[in-house]
């Protein structure tokens, strides 16, 4: 039985766009506050991105969506879905996606919904968009992967919980920059990390988040995808894995037979931390920024709870036309402004002032 999911017509990514806020807080700064620097030699990332006081998943989604539209070069009113995957939607009830649809001139003739699946809410939205366009229900569909993740002060995840993401406009293969070859979704009930309703910070199972969660799900999704498509790791120019830290994606890549060179372009966590639902899609936008026509790219997400989406794309000639039609992923990552822990704590509402 083939597990592979393929659309009934050729489709792909017609536009993509990144967003990363300009602020960073150094992992060493967090260590200084909570551990007096005890673990400075073994930090999971160098620094993490941080949204400004006036940014949230909605504003960041709008900018990434704008960038995707600039590259897609289509009338926004042709888009029939705005699906935003995040674990940090500003409203508990009221879609992120309607604000984004309005701000991007996609409204009113569109479906709009928010996805939640921890760190793979974004690729979940992409899968849905691929199905929507692949079935010909829509010509264009916008999927957004964006987060402003929060870690409990002093918790191990505080070092990495970051902000950023990417947006993808799915459409016909004819004007795609990368055509979908097939995808796999793999999900089981694995409570490695979760946040209960009305709780501000998530809980996690420490080392349980590794083998039975991250590694098992990604490995199974990617292996099955390669088998079904009859591909081997060396057929890919680049591969992007979910990146909760620097080590995990390096380790899973190695286990699956990918080289450090293949994952280099899309490995952003050392510089910006773990952007949760935004993480692997943002890495994928960085890979697209660097891709050449004919390159095959792998995107493999992981979301706690738990599951993995693995997708294979082949880059087209159109990448050369649109690559610089919007700011590159790198141009966002490079504009870093370091802030101290107190500023970070204030902006992220860790200090109550009323």
């Amino acid at each position, binding site marked *: 039985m083939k597990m592979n999911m393929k659309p009934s017509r050729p489709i792909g990514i017609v536009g993509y766009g990144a967003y990363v806020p300009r602020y960073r807080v150094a992992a060493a700064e967090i260590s200084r506050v909570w551990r007096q620097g005890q673990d400075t030699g073994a930090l999971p990332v160098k620094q993490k991105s941080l949204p400004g006081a*006036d940014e949230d998943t909605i504003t960041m989604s*709008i*900018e990434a969506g704008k960038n995707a539209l600039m590259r897609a070069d289509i009338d926004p009113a042709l888009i029939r879905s705005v699906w935003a995957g995040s674990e940090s939607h500003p409203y508990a009830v009221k879609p992120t996606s309607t604000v984004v649809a*309005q701000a991007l001139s996609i409204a009113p003739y569109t479906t709009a919904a928010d996805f939640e699946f921890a760190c793979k809410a974004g690729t979940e939205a992409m899968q849905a968009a691929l199905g929507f366009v692949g079935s010909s229900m829509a010509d264009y569909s916008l999927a957004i992967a964006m987060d402003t993740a929060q870690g409990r002060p002093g918790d191990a995840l505080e070092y990495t919980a970051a902000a950023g993401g990417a947006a993808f406009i799915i459409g016909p293969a004819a004007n795609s920059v990368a055509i979908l070859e097939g995808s796999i979704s793999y999900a089981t009930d694995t409570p490695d990390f979760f946040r209960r309703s009305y709780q501000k910070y998530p809980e996690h199972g420490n080392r349980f988040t590794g083998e039975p969660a991250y590694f098992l799900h990604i490995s199974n999704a990617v292996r099955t995808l390669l088998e079904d498509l009859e591909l081997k790791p060396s057929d890919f120019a680049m591969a992007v894995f979910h990146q909760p830290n620097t080590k995990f994606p390096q380790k899973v890549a190695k286990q699956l037979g990918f080289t450090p060179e293949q994952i280099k372009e899309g490995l952003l966590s050392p510089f910006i931390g773990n952007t949760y639902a935004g993480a692997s899609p943002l890495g994928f936008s960085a890979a697209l920024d660097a891709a050449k026509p004919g390159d095959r790219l792998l995107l493999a997400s992981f979301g706690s709870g738990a599951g993995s989406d693995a997708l294979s794309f082949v880059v087209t000639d159109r990448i050369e036309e649109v690559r*610089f039609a919007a700011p590159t992923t790198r141009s966002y990552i490079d*504009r870093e402004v370091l802030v101290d822990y107190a500023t970070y704590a204030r902006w992220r509402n860790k200090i109550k002032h*009323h």
Partner: protein
Amino acid sequence: MDIPRTWRLRDQRYLLQGNQCEECGELYFPKVFICHKCRCRSLKDYQFSGRGTVYSYSTVYQAAPNFDAFVPYIVALIDLKEGPRVTAQLSDISPGEVEIGMPVEMVVRKISEDGERGVINYGYKFRPPIPLEE
């Protein structure tokens, strides 16, 4: 809770949508109901590019309650490329970096929050442009 206003002004705030006189072509932001040049009452929506330059600026340290969480923040008058001047906040910039005449581009940001329970107001702010590579 001024929910109707947030709703009513959403396209102006998210898209920098003003209008244009159908008679003489004059551009307006915010929208006008009669052309101030030729008194024509027929005007159509016009979306501004969001590109402009700083005409003047200052920093707010004491704000109204809805803006409390954001102080200090920078406010400015922006001369849009197409002509009209807009009052807005600057974002992604520190007070010492602002200069009259500097180019800026429009972004959508959180403008205010109606307390912890109320609506979040989003709208235009301006920031130094992120350059496109070639």
